């Protein structure tokens, strides 16, 4: 076989393999994008930067959302605070004092019928940070 023929065959095979690899990867990507779960379980959102940012937030309420309407007589309040914070939760029907030993809290809080103005105040262990407040309005309405 001539030298030119060998070179041509080698080049052809190499280019063919490159195209094949490209096509296989594109096909896999298309398949994955079609099978994406609708509930977003695999959604990757938090980044390291975001985690660090959240770590210094003195009070973050993750549940419930402000202005929500419920038909129950109590609600779960969940959130994130700095470790060893003192939390005062106050509404017209209940005063609650919590000392957190982790960076999260989770309490069942009673509701009165109608509008419930609930104020959460956090006093961090580091007294120089001062206090932080958030007000929630929760509507406990029996809509019938």
């Amino acid at each position, binding site marked *: 076989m001539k030298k*030119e*023929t060998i*070179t*041509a*065959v080698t*080049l*052809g*095979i190499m*280019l*063919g*393999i490159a*195209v*094949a*690899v490209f*096509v*296989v990867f594109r*096909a896999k990507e298309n398949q994955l994008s079609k099978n994406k779960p*609708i*509930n977003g379980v695999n959604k990757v959102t938090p980044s390291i930067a975001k985690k660090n940012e959240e770590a210094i937030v003195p009070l973050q309420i993750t549940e419930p*959302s402000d*202005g*929500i*309407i419920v038909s129950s007589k109590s609600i779960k309040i969940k959130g994130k605070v700095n470790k060893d914070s*003192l939390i*005062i939760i*106050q*509404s*017209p029907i209940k*005063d609650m*004092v919590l*000392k957190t030993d982790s960076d999260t809290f989770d309490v069942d809080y009673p509701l*009165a*019928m*109608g*509008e419930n*103005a*609930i*104020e959460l*105040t956090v*006093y961090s262990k580091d*007294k120089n940070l001062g*206090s932080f*407040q958030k*007000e929630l*309005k929760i*509507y406990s*309405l*029996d*809509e019938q």
Partner: protein
Amino acid sequence: MKKVLVVFSIAFFLVGSVPRTVTGQTKTATGSSKAASDEAGIDSDTKKFKEKIVNAVSEQYKKDRKAVSGFVTKTSDSLLTIKTDTDEDLEVKNDEILTKIYQISNGQKKEIKMSQIEKGDYIIATGPMIDKTVTANFIYMDEKYLVKTGKITEVNKEEYSLKVSTVEKDVFTIDIETSTKQQILNINSLVLEKVGFSKIKEGDTIHFTAIKTGKEKEPNHFPAQKIVIIPQEYFLK
């Protein structure tokens, strides 16, 4: 040179066509029984998928339900204008047949008529909202409570009142009445205990609740429903 090009082209197409053939083969059905079972599987998957969507929509609707509240500034037979906490003017449309109107008092609701709602009343309305108009499904007449935190800047032992400055720089005067529930944080046990007015000092932190009627003689002057004192010693520990 021509020969080189011909061989090159043949080699390129032969190798390049292999993966496409392989990926294509994975989707090919192989028999009628398999196709039938696949179809049944698809039907069941579709059903589950539909159920999931219905549940998700229903859950989302429950989560998205919102209410508006504020003091009534204008009334008419079918329309109320309210001012919210954020000083926003909203309109609440009343449908004589569809809208149900209640008064909330002592944890109970009692059906009332639209004509019983007056200027200055505090209401909550629920229903679809377009721009600044809520077409109310329900209207509730309720009491407006203030829940605030601040630092005590003045203790008036003659008037039994406290001047409180909040983080937002609002200044409140709150009257301590015989009915006011007074508590203080025990800084060692972190338990709330009863406290007398004489123990309250300037510099202490106060959490208070009060009823806002909208008819106060002085703005930001309210009788306190209850107070919780965080003594300044807690912050010096």
